[in-house]
């Protein structure tokens, strides 16, 4: 994975980098929110202009409190540029971060409470819990991993399976609500 980190504490930033690189992830570290969004923006422009073959960042890890620009403001600006960007907050102020993220951001973000063991960061980045739940549902996760899925794809797969398995799941209603043209509704009616 390609991961962008914004963390003003050098030691912590270095710890993230070493741990993530040990897991073969590519890490780009920045010192504050300002530098982070400048780099993110440049990366997007390069990508759009086709001058870089790199993919966009799979995850952005943001410290909450940082000089020049805090993590929340950086998240807002990143999501403006890339609305589906995966963002992970590392914050010692969990309640504040949670409340503010719900108020300020249109997208669900992930939250790690500082201080945390470095394994927790790795497990979060690599979606360990989601894969475990998929495995519990007898999904062959090795096959899934072969496709290098994004976090959103793995999460959608789990949520889809949980929906399907829910006792009261009404697929017809879900499809009808998503398909105003009524194609599926028509098909199911004609199927009796």
């Amino acid at each position, binding site marked *: 994975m390609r991961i962008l980190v914004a963390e003003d504490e050098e030691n912590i930033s270095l710890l993230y980098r070493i741990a993530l690189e040990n897991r073969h992830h590519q890490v780009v570290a920045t010192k504050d929110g300002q530098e982070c969004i400048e780099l993110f923006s440049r990366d997007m422009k390069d990508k759009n202009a086709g001058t870089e073959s790199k993919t966009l960042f799979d995850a952005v890890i943001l410290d909450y409190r940082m000089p020049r620009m805090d993590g929340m403001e950086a998240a807002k600006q990143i999501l403006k540029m890339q609305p589906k960007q995966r963002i992970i907050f590392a914050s010692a102020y969990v309640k504040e971060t949670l409340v503010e993220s719900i108020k300020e951001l249109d997208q669900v973000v992930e939250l790690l409470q500082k201080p945390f063991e470095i394994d927790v960061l790795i497990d979060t980045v690599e979606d360990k819990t989601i894969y475990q739940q998929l495995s519990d*549902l*007898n*999904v*062959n996760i090795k*096959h*899934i991993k072969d*496709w290098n*899925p*994004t976090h*959103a*794809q*793995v999460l*959608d*797969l789990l*949520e*889809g*399976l949980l*929906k*399907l*398995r829910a006792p009261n*799941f009404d*697929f*017809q209603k*879900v*499809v009808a609500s*998503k*398909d105003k043209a009524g*194609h*599926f509704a028509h*098909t*199911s009616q*004609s*199927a009796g």
Partner: protein
Amino acid sequence: MNTNQLDHLSLMEDLLTVLGEENMSILYHHLERLGVKRNEISDKPDEFSKALRVIFGQAASILEAQIVSSIASRTGQSFGPRVTLVEALARLKAEEARSEKA
């Protein structure tokens, strides 16, 4: 192998390997309620793809890619990485039509 021979079982075999029998049974059950029977998936790829997207959101593309890759290995065709199930089946049918004319 042509689309007629590309029956449901071979089409869905790899997906079964990924999702497991229980999940596939549940998926079939819901698909049938929508009017897509398990032996009609290759005839109704649009409906099937749409259903996958509704249920699995962004993960639908992985599941479709798995099926397309399965079709490719079974037919000896090579599809690009972004070819959808609908496009793959349409291409196979077009090739069949061409070879029948020839």
